[in-house]
């Protein structure tokens, strides 16, 4: 479904990603792990069109998307959920969610999508009319993911959802991500440590200093970890 081929990405003069390639099959939950500052977020942003790719190519549903705008990609179901949430602080929870359905892809069935998000996170239903800036870290993360779901994603790129969450909330968050996978959403998930997502991913890549390795099934990966 998604095929990243040998991409290089720069921030100004900084060479962040070096010839990174990875594959995500339809319905898969693929993880990318690596320490902070090694280019995980940049990889997701490059896939979702939020940062420019200097060389290489990205195929989505068989078509090159390297030069597509973010709007076009969201319209085709490629949706990014940011590690720093990127909510609209002075809008209500409900308004934030409805903005997730801004494009034609999400419009027309907002009520169904809202119900789905509220079923997943009853807490958000309770706080619908509250401003996003008043939410706790856990609730903000729920809202970020919920807003992503409102866009009716085919492939959800989730950037470190555990960031800043208490351990118990991390478990709940990862459970819901596994649940999303079971309902047919393809997921590319970035986290700092393999231990966190080991139980839910199908395959894992490791990103170190902008160079990727791995991609084997998780059992093989775990063995490599223990060597």
């Amino acid at each position, binding site marked *: 479904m998604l095929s990243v081929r040998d991409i290089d990405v720069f921030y100004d003069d900084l060479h962040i990603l070096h010839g990174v390639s990875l594959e995500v099959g339809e319905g898969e939950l693929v993880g990318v792990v690596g320490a902070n500052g090694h280019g995980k977020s940049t990889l997701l942003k490059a896939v979702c069109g939020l940062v420019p790719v200097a060389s290489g190519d990205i195929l989505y549903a068989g078509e090159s998307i390297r030069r597509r705008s*973010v709007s076009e990609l969201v319209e085709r179901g490629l949706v990014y959920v940011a590690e720093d949430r990127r909510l*609209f602080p*002075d809008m209500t929870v409900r308004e934030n969610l409805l903005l997730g359905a801004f494009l034609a892809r999400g419009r027309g069935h907002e009520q169904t999508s809202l119900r789905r998000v509220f079923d997943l996170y009853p807490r958000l239903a309770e706080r619908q009319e509250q401003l996003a800036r008043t939410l706790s870290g856990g609730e903000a993360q729920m809202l970020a993911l919920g807003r992503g779901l409102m866009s009716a994603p085919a492939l959800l790129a989730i950037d470190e959802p555990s960031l800043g969450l208490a351990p118990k909330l991390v478990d709940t968050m990862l459970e819901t991500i596994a649940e999303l996978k079971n309902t047919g959403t393809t997921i590319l998930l970035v986290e700092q440590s393999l231990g966190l997502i080991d139980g839910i991913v199908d395959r894992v890549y490791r990103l170190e200093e902008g160079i990727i390795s791995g991609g084997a099934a998780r059992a093989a990966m775990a063995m490599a970890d223990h060597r």
Partner: protein
Amino acid sequence: MTQFLEVIFGGIAQAAAYSIIAVGLSLVYGTARTLNFAHGALYTTGAYISWILTVGYLGLPLWLAVLVLIPILFSIGVAIETLMLRPLRGGKNWRVTAMMVTLGLAFVLDNANLILFGAVAKPMPAFIEGTVSIFGVTVSAYRVAVLIIALVIVALLEVFLNRTRFGWAVRAVAQDIQGARQVGIDVNRIFAFTFGLSVVLTGMAGLLLSPIFLISPQGGWEPFLKAFVIVVLGGLGSTRGAIAAAFFLGLVEAMVVYQLGASWTMPVWLVTLLLVLMIRPQGLLGKGQSEAAG
């Protein structure tokens, strides 16, 4: 006492017009993070274009002049944003560069207006003659009209921002640019649109205020400075704050003019600004600056 009330009412009417200028300035600062120094020159340009359309050359009736004026102003704004500011965005220190570019544009517009229309201020007749009496106070009908029109414009803007899909997108961009991109909003389109809208607002204010102040090539700087004070006082990026600040300063100005004379206006605006910022650095209704440029 009657004279005092007349002065107060004059202050309110002018404040309403200033609030339109300020809201335009605030809209562009809030979304595109650009402080537009050409806002005052565009106010003057709007006034000159209105003059050409009405008494200057074409002799159009006011309603028709407004209908022609709005698309012209909007196109000017879109052109400035797409041709002059967009290419800078994202570069090193682009905010400062963009500010300098708008400052340069202000000088170009001022001098173009000077060459085209001459240094002598152009008079503009009031579009409505006569006076009306409110609670025994006699005020010019034109000032009442300015107040009503300005309030209607601000109300329409609020409805647009809060009730329409495109208005939501503008607010989303104002609150988090990257978040807006993530949900698929074309932020460049929003920047162009808000810049167009802000030029419409300041140009319309130019039209509304020209019968009161005359039109002169440098005449936009005072409204710009006042709008700037209003925006800072009301909280950067806050529409309602800008309106509240405009009325507050309009009343202060009216009282100062009444007690001390018109030359004290700007010093008093500045002192008021300093005092408010000492007590509330985020402005009257501001929520503090969020560094959300992505």
